[in-house]
């Protein structure tokens, strides 16, 4: 530019400090601005603005686009089960995920001011932001697998549970055939009743060697029963390496400790119980004269606690939201943490000097000063959560997909994933656009306020 320019020193705000142009130079400036803007305007016009208009119009046409259907697609959206589930889930997402991320980020940001390794902590929490939601989805799908031998979450739950619960479980056990034992709904019992004062043995098979506890010892025959007692041995009727006679307590057969044995009276009530010792022996004492059935209740042979079916319809959305929080809590932490560092600390110090406790300092001073940042984080997360796609597409197994559905996934399914209904797809896209409108308005207002400052 060749115009003469009055030197403008110390112009405060930049931008608008150009001399007032007149006539032709004004048009010239317009052309220059246009030159700088042209590539962006072409892209935004052709590939963003035009498609918005197209999609709005398209949403009033039928699946194939041939006929005008008015509001039909919008009515379908709220009456069709699958789309309605998607909309309901999106509401749940918006209510839970942004708030959870913001609160967690706030807690992290406040706490990390007190530690020396704050940078390392920030990096660790923020790192998931860098990876794709696909990778995060693969990670969480693996972690929440149902089989506690494969999924780390259920593995942890089962470990904790068995540390506190009784741990003598012999899954898969069965009575040796032809030796007077019956099995019914998991219970192993004597076929016929036994008089008190006698012996009932339980040779069992079908137990995995690794479920026999280390404390188990060589099986021993029970000591002779006295009056009012029922005695016997529960053992694994297998000699490791082969050999032995079925139903005999041979050398090399282990007793099964910790098994509950019930003496069931004729009326079906449990008269008394006992638990087997390391050699597999039990002694049920204090029985009245009479005949009893001796039974090993099903609890002995349960698989035990196997964790939670995380990827089932019931929990799937919760798991996906958790994976979202894993990714985005770092964003909110970093934003809030930088907001915190910009706050004037003297106010907080003054309040502390006046005897305010940490909680009051936080709620009365820090939080209000932080509120602009908190709003930014919250609005950004809402915009982001509404469009959530990848995680919901990747994490649920086929059976739980309908329960996990969200608008963006439904939009993809009906328009590209086999639904072949681009009318409904367009309506769903416009619904998403309408849902982000409030956030857009907040963004514009915030921008205007900042300009006026």
């Amino acid at each position, binding site marked *: 530019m060749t115009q003469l*320019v009055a*030197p*403008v020193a110390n*112009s405060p705000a*930049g*931008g608008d*400090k150009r001399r007032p*142009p007149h006539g032709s130079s004004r048009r010239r*400036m317009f052309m*220059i*601005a246009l030159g700088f*803007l042209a*590539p*962006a305007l072409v*892209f935004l016009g052709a*590939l*963003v603005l035009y498609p*918005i208009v*197209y*999609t709005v119009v*398209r949403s009033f046409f039928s699946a194939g686009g041939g006929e005008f259907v008015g509001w039909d697609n919008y009515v379908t959206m709220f009456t069709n089960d699958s789309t309605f589930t998607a909309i309901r889930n999106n509401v749940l997402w918006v209510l839970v995920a942004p708030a959870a991320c913001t609160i967690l980020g706030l807690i*992290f940001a406040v*706490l990390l001011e*007190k*530690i020396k390794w704050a940078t*390392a*902590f920030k990096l*660790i929490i923020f*790192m*998931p932001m*860098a*990876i*794709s939601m*696909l*990778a995060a989805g*693969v*990670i*969480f*799908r*693996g972690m929440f697998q149902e089989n506690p*031998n*494969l999924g780390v979450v259920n593995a942890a739950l089962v470990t904790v549970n068995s540390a506190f619960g009784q741990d003598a479980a012999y899954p898969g056990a069965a009575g040796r055939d032809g030796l007077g034992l019956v099995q019914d709904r998991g219970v192993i019992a004597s076929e016929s009743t036994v008089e008190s004062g006698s012996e009932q043995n339980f040779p069992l098979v079908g137990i995995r060697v690794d479920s026999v506890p280390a404390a188990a010892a060589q099986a021993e025959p029970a000591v002779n029963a006295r009056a009012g007692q029922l005695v016997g041995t529960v053992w694994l009727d297998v000699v490791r390496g082969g050999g032995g006679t079925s139903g005999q307590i041979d050398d090399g057969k282990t007793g099964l400790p910790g098994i509950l044995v019930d003496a069931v009276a004729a009326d079906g009530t449990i008269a008394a119980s006992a638990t087997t010792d390391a050699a597999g022996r039990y002694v049920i004492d204090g029985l009245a004269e009479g005949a009893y059935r001796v039974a090993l209740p099903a609890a002995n042979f349960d698989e035990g606690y196997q964790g939670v079916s995380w990827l089932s319809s019931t929990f799937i959305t919760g798991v996906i939201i958790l994976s979202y929080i894993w990714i985005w809590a770092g964003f909110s932490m*970093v934003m809030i943490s930088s907001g915190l560092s910009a706050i004037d600390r003297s106010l907080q*110090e003054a309040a*502390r*000097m006046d005897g305010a406790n*940490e909680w009051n300092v936080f709620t009365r001073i820090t939080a209000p000063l932080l509120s602009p940042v908190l709003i*930014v984080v919250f609005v950004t997360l809402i915009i982001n959560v509404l*469009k959530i*796609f990848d995680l919901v597409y*990747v994490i649920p197994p086929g059976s739980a997909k309908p329960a996990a559905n969200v608008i963006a996934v439904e939009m993809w399914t009906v*328009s*590209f994933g086999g639904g072949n209904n*681009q009318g409904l*797809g*367009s309506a769903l896209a416009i619904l*998403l*656009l309408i849902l*982000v409108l409030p956030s857009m308005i907040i*963004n514009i207002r915030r921008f205007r306020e900042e300009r006026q400052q």
Partner: protein
Amino acid sequence: MSGPATHVRGKKTLARSILGFVDKGLVNAVLVIVAIFWLVPTLGLFLSSLRTVGDSASSGWWTVFTTPAQLTIENYASLLSNPTITGSFWNTILIAVPTTVFVVIFGALAGYAFAWLKFPGRDWLLIVVIVLLAVPLQVALIPLARMFGTLGIFGSIFGVILFHVAFGLPFAIFLLRNFFTQIPAELLEAARIDGASDWRIFVQVILPLGGPAIASLAIFQFLWTWNDMLVALIFTNSGSQPLTVAIQSQLRQFGSNIDVLSAGAFLSMIVPLIVFFAFQRFFVQALLAGSQK
């Protein structure tokens, strides 16, 4: 908590500093646990990717701590000899790099216009950009699939790039405009007195001074495009698909091919993680500037 302890008067000091000490220990403990929770998922994926299919089908990744012998790079070896994966890795680069370059160039040009040129309707146009920041890309999927079909670029890398550039621009313009307005006006005026044209000012003053901002944008846009799955899922075919799409197509048989999945997912993370750890300061800056201004 040393702050309050040093500021309170008299007898409270000792009690407070003891409290502060306990408090500090507690905070450290809590954050260590949180950090472990945050690391476990990535660690788990990484260790899974180093185990054979057989091991993965019968036991969890944490068993490597007791039997480290099961670790193997077999999965990566077979992955890297799989033409679908290596091809999609190249596609990812061919999509992410040009997208980033175009977004940065077009965003910087427009950002300069919004920051330093005066033209009618500028403020309104800027508000349009801010509105577009939040537009969900779902609204463009159907019309652009049709448009690209007509143009014969549906399924090509070129189409995906166009899509990403368009939807990357609002953020780019907004971010760079905010940075460029902070450049001191005297510098521009000085250049103008020396007779520099707007183009020369842009190239010789704005671009060098806006370096950190441009780096922030570039890193952000690169990671964004690299990690995209939705756009690529619709706009690419088996020849032009990036890693994310190639990997997700393995998901249907989860469990039987955990080896491909975990190694593939980790492979797709390697580049973003390197970029993140090398340039995380810029990445954070992009987020801060993009949403706070």
